[in-house]
């Protein structure tokens, strides 16, 4: 066993992980959103977005427009929701109220806001506006996070390929 070789390999692994982390955080700063790329988890925007589709977000706009598809997070609930803005009300001081609805849902989102709220606030609740779209690519992450055998298979594959790559 060559210690130098092992250490170099370890260093390379660290480099890969840290550059991935830097890329993600850099994108976060550029878009002003804490999660600039999201995977759709529900069918409430069908047929526009299906489960597993990947969305690219942008959050440097001052105000949302009617028709924009936005991601929002309601306070105390950590699940991000992808829905369309159907009403906007803003004043001179740039405080904006939004009402959203899923294309595939019958009614608007007021029941989701909770706590007697009937509007979202742009500054506080919006994570980003959808700008770009790639279909189905994110299904891998849903598959891995919801299927324990898939998780094991992925771990096993990574482990075996690490063992076998002893060139």
């Amino acid at each position, binding site marked *: 066993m060559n210690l130098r070789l092992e250490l170099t390999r370890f260093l390379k692994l660290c480099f890969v992980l840290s550059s991935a982390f830097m890329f993600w955080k850099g994108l976060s700063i550029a878009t002003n959103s804490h999660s600039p790329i999201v995977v759709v988890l529900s069918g409430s925007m069908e047929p526009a977005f299906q489960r597993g589709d990947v969305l690219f977000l942008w959050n440097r706009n001052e105000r949302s427009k009617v028709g924009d598809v936005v991601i929002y997070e309601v306070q105390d609930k950590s699940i991000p929701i992808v829905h369309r803005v159907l009403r906007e009300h803003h*004043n001179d001081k740039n405080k904006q109220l939004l009402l959203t609805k899923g294309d595939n849902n019958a009614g608007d989102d007021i029941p989701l806001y909770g706590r007697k709220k*009937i509007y979202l606030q742009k500054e506080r609740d919006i994570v980003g506006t959808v700008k770009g779209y790639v279909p189905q690519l994110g299904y891998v992450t849903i598959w891995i996070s919801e299927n324990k055998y898939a998780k094991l298979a992925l771990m096993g594959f990574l482990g075996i390929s690490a063992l076998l790559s002893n060139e």
Partner: protein
Amino acid sequence: MFSLSQRFQTLGNQAITYGLFISVFIAITSWFQLQSQDADLVPSTIESIKPSLSFRTSRYYGSVNGKPKENAKITFDLETDLTPLFTWNTKQVFAYLTAEYDGKNTHNEVVFWDKIITSKDEAHLKVNGAKSKYNIWDAQDKLSGKELEFKLKWNIQPYVGPLIYGETIGSKDVLVQSAAADDDNK
């Protein structure tokens, strides 16, 4: 030299590169296709808008603490042909009828009606006396006495690439009469 993981990695890299290249190509060509079809110059006619008012006391109709809230619905006629919005990268068109109006120090835009169009065959919209899909209330006080400017806007959802927004040419101004004035007319 050629381990399993290396082969897998090369294959993966190539798939991603080609996939990216094809996606960008599709997005760019569909943008040019939209330009050549004059997607930004689609005309629409919005006619005979009749608002009707009611008062609701539910939170789901904008009421705060059970105070009656004025809700507005409309009936309207609409004709437009959104066929130019369909390119080889159009998955659906979301067409929505909005009304813009000014309140006290506020600017507002609300959607009264919308429609998801998934194929060229359904792109020619012609509705007469259609009812609005939503009950609309003002965030501040009420809609009556306000001048609403109606427009038909659209959003193209692509198979891959950026979401594209625009509006049709044509608008209609309507003053919402208060319920009391309505009674006087009868």
